[in-house]
């Protein structure tokens, strides 16, 4: 059957109207645009709703609990990744800079790369993998087992109860973990560049001190706050609306929501990184 039904017979004397144009690519693009628009709008409302309920004294115990889960429990993995990222940076940059006789700038290159870009981005991705996926799965299970419905029947706002403390904890934890990543990364660069490859230690530390500006640190923190908002909102949103998925049901929908939460978070971290960087520079 045609998707553009026309009258079986045109009225006599009437001029033929415009023929419908069937461009599947354009229609698909239009549908994607509408869906994207609706999703972004829903995410924004979800974020604002949760953010508005963050600051309440009854949230404090749960916020502390979530800081422990998102922050403290992620610290070791973030430190480990930060250390090896710094080591790889030190290793690569020593070889590259040697070609230009600029090894003395190793500290500058390592510190600025980490503080401005790699620290916030990799920290956010690590937290997404460790805590974001867990959030999506936990909230998803609560949704399919009617625990979220139970909250509604008890007059407890599910967004305030489940999402707001996580958002608050994310906003506290992301910058702190980013700072840990940066510091350990700089240490890793020192180990590989200075201790293993023989770059000058004093030069490495002096260049960091001389080249890293407060605006660099602030920029990194701004990014980590933006990423916190993105990661927590996307992961909680995916779990919260698990039951509305049309591609699966039950536990399968939880697993797909968790996958979507991680993938979308990573993609939006990188998109947001570009946007925020372009504003900061």
């Amino acid at each position, binding site marked *: 059957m045609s998707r553009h039904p026309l009258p079986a017979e045109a009225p006599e004397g009437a001029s033929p109207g415009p023929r419908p144009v069937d461009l599947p690519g354009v229609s698909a693009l239009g549908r994607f645009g509408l869906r994207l628009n609706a999703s972004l709008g829903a995410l924004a409302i979800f974020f604002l709703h949760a953010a508005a309920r963050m600051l309440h004294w*009854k949230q404090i115990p749960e916020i502390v609990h979530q800081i422990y889960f998102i922050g403290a429990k992620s610290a070791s993995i973030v430190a480990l990744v930060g250390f090896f990222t710094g080591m790889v940076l030190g290793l690569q940059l020593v070889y590259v800079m040697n070609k230009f006789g600029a090894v003395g700038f190793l500290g500058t290159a390592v510190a600025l790369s980490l503080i401005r870009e790699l620290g916030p981005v990799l920290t956010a991705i690590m937290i997404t993998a460790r805590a974001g996926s867990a959030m999506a799965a*936990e909230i998803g*299970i*609560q949704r399919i*087992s*009617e*625990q979220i*419905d*139970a909250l*509604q*029947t*008890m*007059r*407890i706002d599910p967004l305030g*109860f489940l999402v707001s403390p996580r958002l608050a904890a994310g906003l506290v934890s992301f910058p702190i973990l980013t700072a840990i990543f940066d510091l350990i990364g700089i240490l890793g660069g020192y180990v590989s560049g200075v201790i293993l490859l023989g770059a000058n230690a004093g030069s490495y530390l002096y260049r960091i001190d001389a080249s890293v500006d407060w605006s660099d640190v602030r920029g990194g923190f701004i990014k980590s706050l933006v990423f916190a908002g993105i990661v927590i909102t996307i992961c909680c949103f995916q779990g919260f609306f698990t039951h509305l998925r049309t591609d699966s049901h039950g536990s399968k929908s939880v697993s797909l929501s968790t996958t979507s939460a991680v993938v979308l978070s990573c993609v939006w971290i990188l998109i947001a990184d570009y946007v925020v960087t372009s504003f900061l520079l």
Partner: protein
Amino acid sequence: MERTPLIEFRNVVKRFGERTILDGVSFRIYEGEVTTIIGLSGTGKSVTLKHIIGLLRPDAGEIRYRGTPLQTMSRAQWDAYIGRISYMFQNNALFDAMTVYENVALPLKRTTRLPRREIERRAMARIEQTELTEVAHKYPSEISGGMQKRAALARALVTDPQVVLFDEPTTGQDPIRKNAILGMIAEYKKKVGFTAVLISHEIPDVFFISNRILVLWDGRIAFEGTPEEMASFDHPFRDEILRSLQNLREDITGVYSTRHFKMRYQTEFGRGGPEETYALLVFSFDNVDEIDREVSPRAAQETLRALGTYIGKHFGAVGGFTTRQTIGEFITILPFSDLEEARRILERFVADFQGEGLPRLAEEFRREIPPERCFDFAISAGMAQGKPLIELESVIEFARYGKQPIAAFSCGLRR
């Protein structure tokens, strides 16, 4: 003057995709009453409750609370309405990362300004009432399904709600706890005067605490009335009730409890016309008191149990139903039988009993008494014709009057 309903459904329609679950459902729930919704699985009972609590919205029709449509309520009105209602979910919906105590205390912690000690006191009171004290600090996954159900019940009642919606509160409970939960609902209703809406498959147990019954059938309300009025309910669902009553017979003995017997009688003959008849048989174990006194209560009970099992299974196979009327007396009803037919069935029973049942009974009896003791017992039977219009007690009395010995046992010898 007609009472104003507390909650009223008017032609409510609910569809999930192509499937219509509620197809113009209309009913009323009155304040201070226990209303039970019964129906087959998948007929929309839980969906109906979820409309009341606002978890689902109707596609068409209207739900009213004290005459005000829920759809037109302001935010403040809605909050006040929801604040009066509590909902116990069919699958409990307990928070699996919280202990039983934390689950029960949660509504108080999040929606009231009560001091911590008062919250603890109220939550623990409900936990004690539902016999969960020992597992109060365990997680839902560490306790049995029945305990989880009771934890959900405790959570539903902890805020002292005015209206409680129970979605199968007794499913998965053992018979003692099932009765305890129904008793608790009845007692709580008496004490607080709350309104309860129950979904239950525990027929006829729920009838004893219900003021009104709603039967959901094929997306519509097929019956709305009192449990007594259900007797005249002429509908295919009635057959389902009868079947469920048959399942209530104690599997081992084949004998109904007195309550279930009366309910079965009511369901079979409650709407019967004056022409319908049944035969009633009375069996008595004549010297049960003497055995109880002279031998042992256990000997009397075990022998009676064996007799009840034999009677229950024998007459159950031909459509009869039996109960234990007094300590040494069993009553059997053979629906739609006249005296002639009943006499033939009884004769077959006596022949079978003398050949097979009595030796088994004697063996049971001998097992309970010392070998040197010698004791007699005798069994009598009487019958009478009954009609729905005649009081059951009168028919029983009449059957007792015509009792005659059908079997006896004397010191190891059959007579």
